[in-house]
């Protein structure tokens, strides 16, 4: 059905048809997630145990149950462009308690992978990627930490790539193998 137009852009946006149409669904999206996550997402009966267990949900708009629904219905754009996708802490509480033995966390991880393929990744994730590439740490040591460590009688730098920078090369080799840094640079540059 052709959408009715009022010839006023604001009004057209405001009154746009928000119903879910069959054309919104991409069955391949569901199949891709099932394959990547290796979990039985189709068996979800939307009981809410996942959201009820989620430490992120009470403090944000992240609803893991909603992502399970989007997965089953194949609502690709809605799932991958929702910034909430990146609020999962991957604590696996939902996976632990799901009565249908589904791993919702793995569905989220699969969706994040598919989002990355479309260059949809929050800036901080990409910057973390760059940090690991350059220092071997997602959260590199800083002066505050160094002072605290010294106070506790520890060496200022931990026995990681901070103390042995020659090993950073190995980490870079792994990251390069997956083109992670390259893509992070490219996406951040485009912003």
């Amino acid at each position, binding site marked *: 059905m052709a959408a009715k137009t009022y010839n006023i852009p604001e009004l057209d946006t405001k009154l746009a048809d928000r119903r879910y149409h069959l054309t919104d669904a991409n069955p391949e999206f569901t199949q891709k997630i099932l394959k990547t996550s290796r979990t039985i997402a189709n068996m979800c*009966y*939307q*009981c*809410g*145990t*996942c*959201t*009820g*267990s*989620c430490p992120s*949900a*009470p403090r944000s708009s992240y*609803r893991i*149950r*909603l992502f399970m629904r989007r997965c089953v219905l194949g609502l690709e754009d809605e799932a991958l462009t929702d910034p909430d996708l990146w609020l999962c802490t991957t604590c696996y509480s939902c996976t632990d*308690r*799901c*009565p*249908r*033995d589904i791993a919702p966390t793995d569905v989220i991880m699969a969706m994040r992978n598919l989002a990355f393929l479309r260059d949809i990744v929050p800036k901080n994730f990409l910057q973390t990627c760059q940090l690991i590439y350059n220092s071997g740490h997602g959260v590199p040591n800083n002066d505050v930490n160094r002072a605290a460590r010294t106070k506790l009688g520890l060496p200022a730098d931990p026995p990681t790539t901070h103390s042995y920078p020659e090993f950073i090369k190995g980490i870079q080799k792994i990251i390069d193998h997956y083109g992670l840094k390259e893509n992070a640079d490219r996406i951040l540059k485009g912003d």
Partner: protein
Amino acid sequence: MAENTEPRIGVFLCHCGTNIAGSLSIQDVVDYAKTLPYVTIADQYQYMCSTPGQKKIDDAIKEHNLTGVVVAACSPRLHEPTFRTATKEGGLNPFRFEMANIREQNSWVHMHGMWEEATEKAKDQVRMAVAKAAKLEDLIPKSVPVERAAMVVGAGVGGMQAALDLASAGIKTYLIEATPTIGGRMSQLDKTFPTLDCSQCILTPKMVDVGRHPNIEMMTYTEVEKVEGYIGNFDITLRKKARGVLTPDEATAKGIVGGGCNGCGDCAEVCPVIKPNPFEMGMAPRKAIYIYHAQVMPLIYTVDFDSCVKCNLCVDACGDKKAIDLEMQDEFITVKVGTAILATGFDLIPIEGKREWGYKQFDNVISSLEFERLICASGPTGGHLIRPSDGKTPMAVGYVLCAGSRDNTGGVAKAYCSRFCCMYSLKHAHQMYEKIPGCKVYLFYMDIRSFGKAYEEFYYRIQNEGTKFIRGRVANVLEDPVTKNLHVYTEDTLLGRPVDIEVEMLVLAAAIQPKEGADVLRKKFGVSASQDGWMLEAHPKLNPCGTTTAGVFLAGVCQGPKDIPDTVAQAEGAASAASIPIHMGEVELEPYFAMCIEDLCAGCGMCVNLCPYAALALGEKNGRTVMVVTEAKCKGCGTCGGFCPGGAIKMQHFTTPQIAAQIDAFFAGGEQ
């Protein structure tokens, strides 16, 4: 039929709608069948099991003077009896019929894109069936008389109803109950949904009826020890557990006139041992000599010998009645019955296995059956609902539905729906409003399954009373260490928000599982279990009361979760089914029994020990020791026939020439 003439076989293919015809070429198989040796006619029909289909068989036998019939259709488990009858109608011995299962074993498993292969396989199946059909012999089923008595195991509402029906139909009925009283789970309930009938008021009159029915022999505190025999002639050994107390009849038999237990309770008053009462879910005490509750049937006390200290105070208190015998031993009795009904019921799952809900960790998390006792007028609190931690009346109560049901994570959880938890939780919500004005009720659910008559209307009523229905399965429960209140965490999925609801008491509508010991019992009767653990019916739709053991029937929850109306309905169905062989007076046994070819038998006796049904023995015949078969006991399993080193045992309907012909037909690929 002349035995020495060339076999003349008729082959009939069934389309089964599109069940078979949708996956393979019926016409190709029919054309192929016509080329097979001995095949006189090959035909097809949309539904061979229907009247026109069966008439085709009937007509063909008469017209073509057939000696054997092959139907290629579904599983013999479904329609072998049907086509045997059709074969008999046509004038042939019914065992001149052979079935090729081209549905379950072919079309259903080769459904997509295997047309050619499925067609070839069907040809193989038909060829093998024809080879066997050419060698089939006339067999005469054996009739055995049926003992005019029945047994019902389990005296809950289902078992009681089945026993009453059988007894009222004039059949002597033994009603066996493992606990000291009949009544079962229903006697633990306060009210029943959706009518809110008082459970005791509708059950206790039935218990009294059972107790005084002249055809019912009620045997409480008794278990099935051993089952021997077969339909019509089961010899069942019962263990009458030592009760420690004589009934008035038993006392009279012992010469104690006017003695025996009259239920006065003087013994329990003096007994020094205190134990939790399982009838009250352990929430009330009982003595080592006890009755479960005041309305027990029979009103006879029972000694718990595991906790009795034999102080003899009760014996003194009983006085001249001399009802108590602390030296009593278990007794074994064997009874003969024609048919048996199992009605063993259910237990709640050990819901503490779901750690996140805190049962047995937090005082105020209770199971639904405990709630039932707490709100019951005859319960441990006299119907005053209090919470366990401090004895206060809870003003906010939560109900967790699907507590362990519809959950396939394994462990204590069950994948199936327990079917009655929705309805009794609605009832509990109603009872809260009825008993505690101003209380708040929260019901955590996924779906409300109010499927029965007047159930949905009951749901409306409860909604209208103000219960808050929160659509979300409970994720976890935490206890406030000071107030002992409970925080229930879930998502209100309709609102899309996580919730944290504080209640003063939480009731878990725990899933149910087969009664402890039911597995051992069903094996004694040769009854299988389905994957979910419940006893397996003969057919889920067309024979829900029967089992694969002839003469053994199921009633109530032992076959799968059921509410009271369904349990009673199935019990009446089972009673009706169990009374048929008894009223007929004799049953036909399949003539599949082993036969000894005495000329070949060396009398070694090895088969005798192998037989799982104790059907074989050694005997003298014409001065030689040979094996003798008790045909009625033989199930035709073939263990002896497969083993016999001399090839002296012939398995009727599965003879070596018949099986060999099938194998030859398969390998020869139809080439002669």
